[in-house]
């Protein structure tokens, strides 16, 4: 019930790394995701998938930090994609114009197929 974000990272997907979020993506949550993402980039990973199945709420400050990760990804010719968004989170991403810079997939399987 506390809303601090929990992250689980699955690096056993070949080139792709899946990051599972659980909880609220606010500024703190966004920064936690960014830290994990930048570590993965350091390690040489260039394709990241954020699975938001267990995230029911985000805010625009958290999303702005995700946009920073996308920027960094574009610089290294990498990709950040999303899957399993609630309809409202997907709508919000679209309102913010994220769709042109990051793939959004309904489920993890579809995302992995498209990304690998």
């Amino acid at each position: 019930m506390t809303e601090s974000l929990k992250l689980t990272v699955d690096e056993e997907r070949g080139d792709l790394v899946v990051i599972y979020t659980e909880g609220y993506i606010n500024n703190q949550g966004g920064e936690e995701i960014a830290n994990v993402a930048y570590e993965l980039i350091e390690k040489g990973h260039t394709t990241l998938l954020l699975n938001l199945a267990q995230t029911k709420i985000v805010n625009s400050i958290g999303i702005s930090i995700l946009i920073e990760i996308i920027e960094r990804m574009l610089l290294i010719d990498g990709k950040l994609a999303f899957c399993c968004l609630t309809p409202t989170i997907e709508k919000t991403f679209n309102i913010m114009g994220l769709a042109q810079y990051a793939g959004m997939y309904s489920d993890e399987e579809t995302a992995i197929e498209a990304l690998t």
Partner: protein
Amino acid sequence: MQQVTLTLPMIPNMELTASTTAGALGEHIGMAQDKVEEVQMAVVEACINAFEHSRSKVREVQVQLLVLGADEDPEGLEITVADDGIGFDPADVAERKDGTELAKLKRGHGLKIIRSLMDEVTIRSSATGTRVTMRKLR
């Protein structure tokens, strides 16, 4: 008339108190879950705008949640998020033109999100504070 007024200190995650309340009220009046979640997202944005931008001295935000329509036939929710901060001119909040295309996306979205997710939004702002009133029908 169902109504809840919350006086919330501007501390992290306190916006979730407002969104949880909106969730309970929305479910209570039988609003569809997607719509309830849209209201919750808009409320969160209105609260963090007040937290981030208002420079309120009392460091509190007032959130009023109101069920529209008769008790037996609720029509929707009206939520007002009010602060006593420095205010701003909503007409002045222009699209940011600086930086790269993507960098431009980074901030300046709160009000757009609120307007897109709610049916009706009114912003009254002056040097004594800001009131964002938003409605969504069931």
